[in-house]
């Protein structure tokens, strides 16, 4: 059984008199442990697809099985629970709370998890999460005291805190330079490999998509191509090959 399984997914927006068919009929299976890169031109429905996979939105029709359970018709509160427990989001714009330390930003999802109510427990877990992304030295920095790459790593740490089975990232390197992008991709690859977290990554750039194990290309609300990647790029190897600059 696949971790993610969508069948004939449709999403139609109605703006005034015009119907916008953001997703026409999308069917896809993603196995646990895959690193899926989603590409396609602007407006092809990538974000719409990811919002549905992330339980932020519900399809107009079609089914979505997450871990074997049909979640396409769940209530808002049930969806919130799934987002909190099973899914981690990483956004292009980081979306960290300003004037809030890295540690507190990472802690945030735990506040909405009734199983993690003890303050000391939350701190400890947030620390662990920051360590995973290599930012244990920056716990009390505010977002505006961190570089873009560091901010994105804080956001990744935040997405990891509830031990999700899926990480959804919508153009996470869109605001970053090449080297920082590779660093962030290294974090994703490590999490994917060592913790078995399934990663879905939206990107415009073919070379970023090649860090994944499989590429799915959208066009006009349908999947045009779906292929395994032959020569996968490995971020850690590329980083080691780069001329050493001052790190952190």
């Amino acid at each position, binding site marked *: 059984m696949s971790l993610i399984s969508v069948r004939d997914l449709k999403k139609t927006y109605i703006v005034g008199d015009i119907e916008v068919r953001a997703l026409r009929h999308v069917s896809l299976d993603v196995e646990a442990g895959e690193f899926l890169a989603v590409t396609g031109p602007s407006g092809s429905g990538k974000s719409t697809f990811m*919002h549905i996979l*992330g339980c*932020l*939105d519900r399809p107009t029709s079609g089914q979505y099985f997450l871990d074997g359970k049909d979640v396409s018709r769940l209530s*808002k*509160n049930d969806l*919130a*629970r799934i*987002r*909190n*427990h099973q899914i981690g*989001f990483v*956004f292009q714009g980081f*979306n960290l*709370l300003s*004037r809030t330390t890295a540690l507190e930003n990472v802690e*945030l*999802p735990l*506040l*909405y*998890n*009734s199983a993690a*109510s003890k303050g000391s427990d939350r701190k400890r877990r947030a620390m662990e999460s920051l360590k995973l992304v290599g930012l244990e030295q920056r716990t009390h920095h505010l977002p505006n005291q961190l570089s873009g790459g560091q901010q994105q790593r804080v956001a990744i740490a*935040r*997405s990891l805190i*509830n031990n999700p089975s899926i990480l959804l990232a919508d153009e996470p390197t869109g605001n970053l330079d090449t080297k920082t992008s590779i660093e962030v991709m290294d974090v994703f690859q490590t999490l994917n490999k060592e913790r078995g977290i399934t990663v879905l990554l939206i990107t415009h750039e073919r070379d970023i998509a090649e860090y994944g194990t499989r590429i799915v290309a959208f066009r006009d609300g349908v999947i045009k191509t779906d292929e395994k990647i032959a020569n996968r790029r490995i971020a850690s190897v590329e980083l080691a090959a780069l001329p050493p600059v001052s790190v952190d």
Partner: protein
Amino acid sequence: MTIFMTFRIALKALNRNKMRTALTMLGMIIGVGAVITMVALGNGAQVSIEQAVQSAGTNVIMVNSGNFSSGGVRQGQGMSNTMTPDDAVAIREVPGVQFLVETINNRGGQIVAGNQNWNTHVEGTNVDLPLIKNWPLESGQFFTPTDVLSASKVCVIGTTVKNMLFPDGGDVVEQIIRIGKHPFKIIGVLISKGQSSVGQDQDDVIYAPFTTVQKKMRGVTYIESMTVSAASADNIRQTSDAIAAVLRVRHKIQPGDSDDFMVRTLEDIAAMRTETTKTMTYLLASIAGVSLLVGGIGIMNIMLVSVTERTREIGLRLAIGARGGDVLMQFLVEAVVISLLGGSIGIGLGYGLSRGLTQFLQWPTYVSPQAVLVAFGFAAGIGIFFGFYPARKASALDPIEALRYE
């Protein structure tokens, strides 16, 4: 999310915008402060009425010239000066009457002794006053029937007047003071009654024979009122009815016509004044309540701004698993924290203001625990009421759109 965490998040958010929070709170502070002060004034008036009744004794009957309870149609009725010392002579004969004093006041005279001066009114009265008021003297004696007959310029003073005019102390009996342009000899000093519990100075008094005030100071023959004490509290009603009957005959009031006087027991007076006091309290409190309402609208306004400003934050919280209810609570608690904090400071302000009014203006005030509780409850209610709409708006946001919000 625990309520404790919600409070911490709210405090943090409010702390980020200190100035804005403080200004929003100010609305609540002023509103609650005003309500507390107004209610304290009303309660103070009420307490002072009750105390007046208690200190005067239950078997006192007041007979006033004029009748302002007969309606405002006949102008001037309330000020008619038809009561004379002869009325008093007749009332002394009414069965059940024990003591009686005639009263006429002389207001607004400067009182001078040496280089000291003081301002208080002079109450013209009769020899039975210490008996009716149950008020002994600390030195000297009260004036005698002879003093009253001859309209002598003698007076008995309270300790406040004594201390103000003779700050060096010593025996003041036989000293001469000037009231207006008249020299008066002090013949006695009443013992101190101190402040009433609502802060009125009961020792700021000067008593002189009513005849002296009539003839030497005011140049009139009428008296303004009489204070009668009944022999016992039991038949006070009959006694006061009998007094009214005598006066009606003497003033030739036809059946069906309204009286040109009022005979009331202290309880009647208290009941009447309580009514007016209540009306006043409600009036003042509702005016103050309007400012509370304005404070509430201020909270709503600021919360709406805050929800808009923090749209992305709300979107993020929703995306990472906050339920609509969590977001609703977060903003509601913020509003309630503003209103409760503001309310608490307002209660403090109202208390301080009430104390100040009593201290500096001698207005009786009383801040009752009930008023404080009600004000606190009201503040919470306002926070919930005016915070609900913005909070509701925040919780109903669509996470995707909120995250996209610029």
